[in-house]
């Protein structure tokens, strides 16, 4: 028998950690000092600006513009109901997947964000005092429904589809002078608009898959059309497609410019642009599926369509989920480009807020404050998504081959 080894030297504790991570050698010590100076300087300046120099009144006063732009106050329950439904659906997903799942990891911080806003609303914003907590509650109800009846997930894709339709009807109102009262799309803006444009990723899914399959097709006409579409769209920047869509879409479709509001034009451009990228992601997944899978399916007597839809696609999509989340982050950030077609999204509201007469009275302007606020909000959501993407990557073992 081998005699027991002596216990290892104590290798933890603060000082050991310091020596190991910060001061293991003269070079690293010097590096640590330089980095510490840079970090302290940056943090000091940032803190000084946020807590001392900044004048945040203008941002605070305009929270409504940042949130929904000109959406009428008396109808605010509608976007918030749509938000609550979204949170509820996400809650069901998260609840069904379990507390420690990736979905829940994404859902709970968002609930936290909504909870903070709700608390602020209860105290400061009488018009939405009960609406924000209600949206929060819907999220939790969804979560508990998911925990209790995990099988509800099965119907979730129907739920999301219904949510898109109901959400649109809710936001726009049904008819002129109808029960809800119509809110014209041109009054939609702020973060609401950013989220609406972000949903462009949902319709881009089927289009992208169709394009990817088309690109792999053996029929040259379809194949080259898909290749041409994908490459041309990906070759030019989104801002250019938005510009072209806003100028030309009414001409191309030969419709009255009035019946095709700017938001629709932007939505079409964003969806098609996103679809082209989606197609490339899906194609990557299709290539990753072993040939044997398809051949085995054919051997079992499945038709070509069945093979694609039931065997190949599910595997391909599973492999590219992280890439798709990455693309979603990109799209979320890219929605800020709709300023070019005159839409007032979250980013553009910043411009308006910094030229209001009240802003003009602040010496030196409030640009820095306004855009810092905007950056923080964008960062919160994009960073949350990127964490989810990384977790997915790990779970699927994509990065570890």
């Amino acid at each position, binding site marked *: 028998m081998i005699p027991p080894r002596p216990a290892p030297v104590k290798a933890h504790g603060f000082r050991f950690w310091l020596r190991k991570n910060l001061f293991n050698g003269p070079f690293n010590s010097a590096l640590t000092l330089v980095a510490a100076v840079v970090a302290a300087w940056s943090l000091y300046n940032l803190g000084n600006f946020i807590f001392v120099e900044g004048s945040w009144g203008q941002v605070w*006063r*305009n929270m*409504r*513009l940042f949130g929904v*732009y*000109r*959406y*009428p*106050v008396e109808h605010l329950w509608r976007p918030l109901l749509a938000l609550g439904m979204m949170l509820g659906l996400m809650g069901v997903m998260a609840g069904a997947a379990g507390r420690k799942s990736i979905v829940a990891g994404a859902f709970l911080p968002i609930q936290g964000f909504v909870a903070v806003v709700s608390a602020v609303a209860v105290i400061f914003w009488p018009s939405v005092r009960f609406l924000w907590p209600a949206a929060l509650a819907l999220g939790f109800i969804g979560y508990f429904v998911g925990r209790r009846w995990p099988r509800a997930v099965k119907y979730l894709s129907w739920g999301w589809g219904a949510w898109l339709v109901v959400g649109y009807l809710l936001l726009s109102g049904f008819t*002129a002078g109808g029960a809800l009262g119509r809110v*014209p799309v*041109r*009054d939609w803006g702020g973060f609401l608009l950013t989220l609406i444009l972000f949903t462009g990723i949902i319709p881009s899914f089927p289009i992208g898959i169709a394009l990817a399959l088309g690109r792999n097709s053996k029929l040259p006409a379809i194949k080259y059309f898909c290749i041409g579409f994908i490459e041309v769209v990906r070759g030019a920047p989104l801002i250019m497609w938005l510009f072209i869509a806003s100028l030309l879409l*009414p001409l191309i479709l030969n419709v*009255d*410019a*009035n019946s095709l509001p700017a938001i629709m034009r932007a939505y079409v451009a964003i969806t098609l642009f996103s679809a082209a990228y989606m197609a490339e992601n899906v194609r990557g997944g299709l290539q990753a599926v072993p040939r044997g899978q398809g051949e085995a399916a054919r051997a079992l007597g499945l038709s070509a369509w069945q093979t694609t839809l039931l065997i190949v696609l599910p595997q391909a999509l599973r492999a590219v989920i992280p890439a798709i989340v990455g693309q979603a982050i990109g799209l979320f950030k890219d929605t800020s480009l709709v300023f070019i077609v*005159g839409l*007032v999204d979250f980013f553009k509201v910043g*411009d*308006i807020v*910094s*030229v*209001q*007469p*009240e802003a*003009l*009275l602040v*010496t*030196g*302007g409030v*640009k820095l404050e306004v855009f810092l606020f905007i950056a923080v909000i964008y960062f919160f959501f994009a960073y949350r998504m990127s964490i989810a993407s990384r977790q997915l990557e790990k779970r699927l073992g994509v990065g570890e081959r």
Partner: protein
Amino acid sequence: MTRYFRFLVALALVVSAGTVFAQGRLQAIKDRGELRCGVNANLPGFGVPDASGAYTGFDIDFCKAIAAAVFGDASKVVYRPLTAGERPTALQSGEIDVLIRNTTRTSIRETDWGANFAPTTYYDGQGFMVRKDSGINSLRDFEGRSICVQSGTTTETNLGTTLAGLGVQFTPVIFETAPVLIAAYDDGQCDGWTTDGSGLVSYQTQLRVPSDHKILPVIISKEPLGPAVLHGDDQWYDVVSWTIYALFDAEEYGVTQANVDDMLFNAADPQVKRLLGAPGSESYVQAFGLRADAFYQAIKAVGNYGEIFDRNLGSGSVFGLERGINAQYYDGGLIYGFPFN
């Protein structure tokens, strides 16, 4: 479906009346129940949303006045924010009923755009702002200096051609949007900047020390700004034009937002009576296809021209702009309301 139904009903009505005439825009607006007004959403003083999201400004008040004249309710306006480039399409496609977006009346716009301009509501001209202590007193002093200018506007080409004509060589610094331009000028990126005089004034307040800057006593273009409607609908054009004249006249005859109720019944001046459609003089306003109290409602909603000016641009605003050339004719300005007769 309802549209078709409505169309059928309308068709039946027209046929049964035995006369065929195109439905005028005024009627279309009345049927629709809202006025569509093309505006600027980003020019302080002329049109910008406030913290509650409601548009406010000089141009906005004229939209309200027209809506009040048509519906008796100034809130029945749908604002369509337009960029400079979107204006002709929006007007031509019928997307908007009236364009009130600090638009200069020019021959090209009357012909190419097919726009009919109502009376000028603001006489403007392209000017220059410089620092008081910059040593620049005339356009010639811009030699070798830089001038900030907004891209894609007539301002840009005016600047280029005027200074080229003087033989002055300068560095243009181009900006897409005015707010960025102002910040850059204030930070000394250029020695001067140019835009319409109204814009100069409206943005001067945004500078760190507004009193350190001056507007050069030089105007290199005439920029009469006013509402525009599409060619070919005289009735609608008359409504827009005379709503403006009514506001001009109201100032001249001392009718204000505060005393208009009193004036309606107690005014002795026949001009005022006709303007307000007071009992006995209804026909003067009704002839436009409007209700008798149309202009009364307009004044009630936004006040007379002088009040609109003061509230948005003049002493009642952060801009504190002088009336100058936009004063009434009897004060040496160019504002001249035509008589109701």
